[in-house]
């Protein structure tokens, strides 16, 4: 059994590696054309009506979820995965409380942008502002990013000195603290949550013709655009001085330190960057749903986020994006399973890790690390 898996694994690795190498060997213009075509396809996806492919749509089955809506969630999760990848995949820090940043981003726009939020009401009373006053959506965006970055630094400052597994449990605790505080406090709307969260066209109303309640396609396109911008941005970051520093720290923090790369400083950077991306995704998420409550930010979601990154291939942006897409999309497409959904999810996690521990689309460097480790393993284990 194991032998079969192993040989199949090897063959698959050759195949996948082959595609990757060939792809990199293509001339630049061809890669550019292919990339543009792919992006075009992504923008076309919510309209998907190609005969033979319509079964991909989640509303293909009765009782299925709205297709564009599912795509939107997929896009938000891809954004989350890209952010978490900075922390887990690039800097090698295990963050099990990423949902905390997601929640802070979502609550930033809810608390400051919604006329129904206790914070806005308090501000109205204090400053004598009109009833329909709230912080504009466009102002909430930098606010959300700033707040999550600050919380990333606040969390990271004391805890980043801890070793890997301690960091994992502390971040898990952080995520829980955020959720519980949001649930127990009155200034966050408590368990009732906050409705009336604004979008690009202002407060939710039936008159919003583009970013309205009913048609989700523009929301998906918005999220996709944000994702593409962030992919571009993170790619630049990865290849910058900071990115190389992260890599060095991940491989060997002591050696990096000797070379003059301050581990703590760059780890904090990774944490803040990752947090900002998490906050941005929470922001987009809350704007679209115009209602959030604390039950949406449970620790299981954090675990799902980490699973997206690891299943997809930590360190590789295409990989984590694919992982996020699959983990968001598959449960929706196969809603028929309903109560088996999580069981199948768990099985899939175990199988992927056993058969392809480097992830679906591994980062080349990471895959090599894994191979090295396998060789280092003593013969008797």
């Amino acid at each position, binding site marked *: 059994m*194991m032998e079969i898996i192993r040989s199949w694994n090897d063959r698959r690795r050759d195949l996948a590696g082959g595609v990757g190498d060939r792809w990199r060997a293509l001339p630049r213009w061809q890669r550019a054309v292919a990339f543009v075509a792919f992006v075009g396809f992504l923008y076309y996806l919510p309209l998907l009506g190609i005969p033979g492919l319509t079964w991909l749509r989640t509303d293909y089955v009765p009782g299925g979820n709205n297709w564009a809506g599912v795509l939107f969630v997929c896009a938000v999760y891809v954004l989350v995965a890209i952010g978490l990848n900075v922390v*887990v995949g690039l800097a090698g820090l*295990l963050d099990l409380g990423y949902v905390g940043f997601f929640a802070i981003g979502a609550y930033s726009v809810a608390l400051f942008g919604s006329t129904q939020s206790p914070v806005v009401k308090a501000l109205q009373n204090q400053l004598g502002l009109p009833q329909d006053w709230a912080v504009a959506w466009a102002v909430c965006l930098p606010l959300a990013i700033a707040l999550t970055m600050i919380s990333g630094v606040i969390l990271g400052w*004391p*805890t980043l*000195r*801890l*070793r*890997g*597994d*301690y960091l*994992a*449990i*502390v971040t*898990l*605790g*952080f995520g*829980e*603290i955020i959720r*519980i*505080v949001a*649930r*127990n406090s009155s200034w966050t709307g408590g368990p009732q949550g906050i409705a009336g969260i604004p979008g690009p066209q202002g407060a939710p109303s039936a008159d919003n013709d583009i970013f309205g309640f009913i048609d989700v396609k523009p929301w998906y396109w918005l999220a996709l655009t944000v994702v593409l911008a962030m992919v571009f941005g993170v790619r630049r970051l990865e290849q910058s001085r900071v990115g190389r520093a992260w890599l060095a720290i991940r491989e060997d923090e002591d050696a990096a330190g000797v070379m003059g790369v301050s581990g703590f400083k760059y780890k904090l950077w990774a944490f803040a960057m990752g947090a900002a991306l998490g906050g941005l995704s929470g922001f987009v998420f809350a704007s679209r749903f115009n209602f959030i409550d604390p039950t949406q930010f449970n*620790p299981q979601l954090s*675990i799902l986020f*980490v*699973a997206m990154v*690891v*299943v997809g291939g*930590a360190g590789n942006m295409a990989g984590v994006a694919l992982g996020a897409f699959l983990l968001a999309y598959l449960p929706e497409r196969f809603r028929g399973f309903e*109560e*088996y959904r*999580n*069981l199948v*999810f*768990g*099985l*899939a*996690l*175990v199988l992927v*890790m*056993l058969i392809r*521990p480097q992830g679906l689309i591994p980062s080349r460097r990471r895959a090599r*690390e*894994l191979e090295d*480790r*396998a060789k*280092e*393993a*003593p013969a*008797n*284990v």
Partner: protein
Amino acid sequence: MNFDELFGHFGQHTVDGLAKGAIYALVALGYTLVYGVLKLINFAHSEVFMVGTFAVVGVWTAMGATDSPPVGTLILLLVAGLAAAMAASGLTAVATERIAYRRLRRMNAPPLIFLITAIGVSLVLSEAYGVWLARFFQGDGLGSQRLVVGMPAVIKQDVLFSVGGTDVTNIQFIIFVSALVMMAGLDQFINRTRYGRGVRAVAQNPDTAALMGVNKDRVIVLIFLLGGLLAGVAALLWAIRYGNTRFNVGFVLGLKAFTAAVLGGIGNLRGALLGGLLLGVVEVYAATLTQSNWEDVAAFVVLVVVLLFRPTGLLGESLGRARA
């Protein structure tokens, strides 16, 4: 802040907290054992415990247990429940190692891969019980529900003795003493026996231990088995104390137990006990001072504060070192 309540019944809250923490400690031992040897956060350990609680339900239901049975029946029920829980939990723990982790060890996979696999195993186990429960209740016409399952209260909770207005109930006493006994027994086992020496050797340096003729696989199976057996004991105590279980009973408990293990110094047996008791007491104090829904925040805040000053927990990591 309800200081009157906390200090008015300070002893009572402390006793409650210690009894609560004792169960955390027993489960925490399982995390700490595995972590001490493999450096693996065995997320599935909480589900090992959950399986144990269901084994108790199954056996008791089959034996037709009732509330407060006569002493003879009671002893029989306890023994059968303990045997079933230990067997179920022990087998589950060993099976997860055999099926999921061993292959990863062969690959010398990094911790992250282990962690995700453990999360997957944990999901599979709890969901399998959830689905089974749903099927089970469908027969009752309740639809596909994953309900809380009640068990008979085999031991009637009574005040065993009182010291200065602080009541200690018989069940609290049993739980606390069991935790201490299990802990001491495990400590002796690790430090005094041949097998224990093997465990310490592997924890200290697996390669060297292998060169010295320690069968690493066997040691690892042993620690999973030990952790599982302890989780089985915790499951029986849980059944006596709380008399309820659910498919996701392990999630919160596991999180707390793991926190307790880290608090005390993961990999350190005495640390697990200390961490568990401390966590239980902190939670009860916090819940008394404010409201019960803040207890988790208090637990995690204490964890962060402790780790800031002692980055490897209260007693440090030390399964590998001699004299635990």
